């Protein structure tokens, strides 16, 4: 009979009101440093009896290790991992001050001197590129002098416009349902580097995005896999469509598709306002060889809008191009009408342009030096 395993449960004393909290990745290594289990804090992992190093990992590369953790067969041990030596970044705050208000009043003058102007776009600007799509809500554009903002959730997605010398840049501000996002941005006049900082005021979502931004693939996958495969773990936590979508992107990138059929289907059904729900579903279906279903949803993209995460735009451009080129050769086998193929061709062109304009230094969508997006 095999030895019964031991169970380790991890507790982290994450400081309150900081940028990161909740599910942080945990690694359990044996004395030869072989990784025996990987999971997240507050969760339990089964390991064979033995002596372990247990490490909690943070998005900035900091870590805290407890060594010499000994567990016996059948034992259920709770392990507190101290984080007192680790610095957590503060949450992002806006600077809504009197001077900001004065600046707003004097906008025409200040913009002349600062050579950049900003505006908030609300709504689905992608629909404007597809005559007849007819967005139910018109695109709205609201100039601002602020370079940081708190944006509350609305079903109209938000993009920020940065205009400089008649060249336009846009970046998406994802906002979670029932939440708000603080966005802070700058466009360097010398290097043209766009910097965007986002705070979702949700420590779990912030940390997942930061693991992605810092290219910490194993950690991001660990959180995302728990998210998709352990609904019990997340049942008592705040529901987050953005976290669910970002987790799906991470697993699709890793081509770890188990569990994503139901997951991506639910995203589309439950969060129609979020363009990325459709993007991850299309990519999942295409990866699974379910191309007619993927195409059917792909044709809905103009109604849904431009994905708020960079991968979504890249995936859609990639799939639209493949399907359009097959259609053009008349050998698609996709069972699409001539009207659908014409629409697909247009989607392919538009997303090709968007993919070419993507700022590859950001995980969220940012489009560089593109034609102005104007309300009708």
């Amino acid at each position, binding site marked *: 009979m095999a030895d019964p395993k031991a169970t380790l449960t991890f507790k982290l004393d994450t400081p309150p009101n900081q940028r990161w909290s909740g599910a942080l990745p945990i690694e359990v290594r044996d004395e030869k440093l*072989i990784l025996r289990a990987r999971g997240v804090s507050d969760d339990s992992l089964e390991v064979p009896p033995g002596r372990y*190093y247990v490490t909690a990992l943070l998005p900035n590369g900091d870590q805290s290790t407890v060594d010499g953790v000994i567990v016996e067969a059948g034992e259920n041990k709770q392990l507190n991992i101290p984080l007192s030596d680790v610095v957590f970044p503060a949450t992002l705050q806006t600077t809504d001050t009197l001077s900001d208000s004065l600046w707003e009043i004097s906008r025409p003058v200040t913009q002349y001197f600062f050579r950049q102007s900003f505006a908030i776009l609300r709504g689905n600007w992608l629909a404007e590129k597809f005559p007849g799509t007819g967005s139910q809500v018109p695109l709205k554009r609201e100039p601002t002098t602020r370079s940081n903002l708190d944006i509350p959730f609305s079903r109209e997605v938000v993009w920020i416009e940065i205009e400089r010398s008649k060249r336009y840049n846009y970046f998406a501000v994802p906002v979670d349902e029932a939440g708000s996002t603080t966005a802070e941005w700058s466009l360097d006049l010398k290097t043209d580097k766009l910097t965007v900082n986002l705070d979702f005021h949700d420590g779990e979502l912030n940390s997942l995005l930061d693991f992605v931004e810092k*290219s910490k693939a194993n950690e991001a996958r660990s959180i995302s896999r728990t998210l998709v495969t352990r609904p019990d773990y997340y049942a008592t936590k705040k529901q987050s469509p953005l976290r669910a979508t970002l987790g799906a992107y991470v697993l699709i990138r890793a*081509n770890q598709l188990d569990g994503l059929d139901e997951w991506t289907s639910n995203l589309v059904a439950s969060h129609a306002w979020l363009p990325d729900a459709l993007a991850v579903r299309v990519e999942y279906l295409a990866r699974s*060889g379910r191309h007619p279903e993927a195409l059917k949803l792909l044709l809905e993209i103009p109604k849904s809008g431009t994905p708020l995460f960079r991968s979504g735009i890249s995936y859609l*451009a990639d799939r639209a191009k493949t399907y359009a080129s097959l259609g053009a050769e008349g050998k698609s086998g996709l069972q699409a009408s001539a009207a659908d193929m014409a629409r697909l061709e247009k989607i392919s062109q538009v997303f090709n342009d968007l993919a*070419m304009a993507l700022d*590859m230094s950001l995980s969220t969508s940012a489009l560089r030096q593109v034609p102005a997006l104007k309300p009708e």
Partner: protein
Amino acid sequence: MGLVVNNNVPGAGVHALIVGVSNYLNLPDAGDTSSDETWNLNKLSSPALSAFKIFEFLTTVGLRLPLKTVRLLLSPSPAELQVEPRLANATPTRASRAAFTAMAAEWRKDASNNAEDMTFFYFAGHGTQRGSEDSVLMLDDFLTSDASLNECFEMHNLRSGMAPTPKRPNIALTQFYFVDACMDRNAKLRTFLNPTVPQVFGIELSDADRREAPMIFSTVDGTIALGRSRKPSHFCQALTQAFERGAEEPNPVTEKWSVTATTMKNALDYYYDKNKLGTHVTMGSLVGSPVIRHLAGPPDVDISVEVQPDDLGLPCAIDVLDENSIAIAGCNPDAKTKFDLTIKAGFYRVQVNSGRLKSTPFRSKGRPFMKPTLDPWTHNLVPLLKPES
């Protein structure tokens, strides 16, 4: 030299296609003025050398699986030929679009017989990126015909053409793609309303795509080329280093250390950061966790140690101890409070002996170092100092 075919290797093996284009026929020399007509691009003096270095690594050191086929296509510059005369006879033909199309077809055919095989693709030359999934790459006869993109190819097409399909159900499911090009967002390309590039592979709808097929781009867009005149590029340098050191985990069964797509990316980013290149590599496509090489033991890892305050007084000894509490010999010969060292990946502690400490020696908590890090491992001993008399 540029073609190795050994399909008699039993079991799974590697099929490689390596391309390096420096001497673009229709571009002005490096340093000469390049106009809008030539897309503001010049001839290069690093890609062929870089591709050759990768070819040598594959044929001499090797990857996880034995080599079955290697195809090398180079257009070296005169400057590179001076540095490495073997480039002159390294390939049967220049890296033209026609030669590339023919070689790619043979490469795919060879790679279509065993799903356990691995493919390896490396391109060095000019290119422009389209999102994380695609790029347009230029071959040496770029701008020969009236249609500007006729002598280019798209990574999207290459990668899609390597997908498993009903016609090619046994194509290698592990595929590595490396693109070593200036990924600047080329303004000229963006003037094309709908830029089309002739296909290398005819596209078919894929079956369920179970590939592990990471695609690693050398630079993010908007950054300058990282090529170095008459030397292999930084990306090439970083990649070979990643092959040799970029493992982070011992395999639970074999205890060998595996270099995977993810650990390679970490190693590449570390090299870029360490050399302050101001950019990072990007990785797209179906990344997975494919293993490209195994290392026999733990890799070398660069770390930095810092102990505060920096005036601990003499005598003072700061050591790094391994998991058996044995000090790493000669790790801090100058008794500095901040020093860099190279260690084998493993579990370590810092030990400080100083008369200024209330209790000496101080021994830090342990920490596993599985990969290199630029951030110093800092130990603040100020609260542990004896009060000043």
